[in-house]
């Protein structure tokens, strides 16, 4: 008899100790906010201290969020926090898909940042491959680079420089704040050696582009 009632006693004890309803509301609020999936009352109960009554707390919490910017919504038999339907128009920017810049673009951008003002020919000399038109276009479109003043050399080629947007994006005050080779090495950024057998030279991804070239881009 004693052994059987032990569990019941335990339960009663913890029931007695159940946190106040306001506290239970807080708990559910935090759980609903942080969970990746909508969560059922049963799961809530399992997570919360013994004796809690998530179903009741949910009623209060739901009421509290009535008319707010977010709502406590029932999704199937589970619960979740959702943006109020009338505010959906604010959420559009959220869906911007970010993609990594291509390696060619990053390298070109890096060379412009470190060597600006720099001509296209100089970029190609440093990279060892021709710079595709798409790469330069993309960087111009991102407003990370812009045309600088022309070089006083034969042909008066245009130069590229980085923009304020570039500095903003990369959290730099000045292109001169970019770390040098020595500092890159110190930070362990130069340790990744290419696998043996990779002979530097024109990368295949760029090779086909080189024929096209961007001479038209710079004609004027």
């Amino acid at each position: 008899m004693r052994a059987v009632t032990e569990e019941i006693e335990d339960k009663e004890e913890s029931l007695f100790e159940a946190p106040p309803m306001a506290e239970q509301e807080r708990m559910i609020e935090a759980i609903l906010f942080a969970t990746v999936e909508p969560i059922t009352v049963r799961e809530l109960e399992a997570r919360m201290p013994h004796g809690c009554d998530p179903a009741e707390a949910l009623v209060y919490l739901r009421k509290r969020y009535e008319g707010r910017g977010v709502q406590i919504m029932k999704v199937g038999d589970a619960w979740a926090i959702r943006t109020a339907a009338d505010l959906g128009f604010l959420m559009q920017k959220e869906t911007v898909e970010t993609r990594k810049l291509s390696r060619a673009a990053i390298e070109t951008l890096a060379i412009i940042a470190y060597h600006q003002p720099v001509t296209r020919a100089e970029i190609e000399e440093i990279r060892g491959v021709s710079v595709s038109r798409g790469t330069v276009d993309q960087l111009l479109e991102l407003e990370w680079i812009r045309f600088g003043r022309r070089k006083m050399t034969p042909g008066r080629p245009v130069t590229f420089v980085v923009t304020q947007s570039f500095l903003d994006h990369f959290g730099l005050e000045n292109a001169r704040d970019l770390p040098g080779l020595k500092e890159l090495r110190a930070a362990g950024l130069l340790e990744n050696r290419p696998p043996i057998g990779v002979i530097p030279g024109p990368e295949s991804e760029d090779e086909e582009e080189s024929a096209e070239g961007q001479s038209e881009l710079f004609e004027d």
Partner: protein
Amino acid sequence: MADETHFEEDTMSVADRLAAEALIVDVDGYEGPLDLLLTLSRTQKVDLRKISVLQLARQYLAFVEKAKALRLELAADYLVMAAWLAFLKSRLLLPPDPSEEGPSGEELAAHLAFQLERLQAMRDAAARLMARDQLGRDFFARGQSEMVTRVRKVTYSATLLDLMQGYARIRTRDDFRPFVMDRDAVFTMEQALDRMRGLIGYAGDWTDILSYLPEGWETDPVRRRSATAATFAASLELVKEGHLDIRQSDAFAPIQLRKRDESRDGRD
């Protein structure tokens, strides 16, 4: 009885030795001499600001002596620090020499005390920082984000790290370029053979081998050397094949070639 005493003595010495060794083995656990000094300073059980640098110097030197006695190899910077502390000790003990330049023993000691205090302060700060509530451990960010409508717009992103690694990749390419011959300055024997085969038909009379050098290879010394060697090797090959005659009148004299004429055979 006697045996027992003996045994006791033995255990004592073993324990001692173990203790001493434990202390030494710990050297690896220290992050350099400053860390070791900081640990030693704790044995003084006083506020770091009131620490006796002289006493600390003695402790450190004793520690290093002990390590030496146990034939433990100490890293060079520990020995440098030992030498410096020995110097500091003498400065602190001897009356100041007014003719001596540079900071006094007291100034040096004060700076060392400052360094120790600062290191300890940073360690405490680090501990307090890590004791703070942390994101993803104690407090949490939003778990879901499916509440957003999908309007596709692509932007491109790159981090400063990407940028720097990209740059580093280009700038250090030469560092780890595997060894390859620079082919643009090399004229191969095959190339020379091809060229010579086409030309020898016209070489009726003795002609200087240098006149066979390919165009554009005569001026640059590196290219010229390569082209000369290849042309010479190709000529020997052609002689071997019986297409050419070759001669050199004297050491370092010009090497001359002419087409082998079957009719001339035996007469020359």
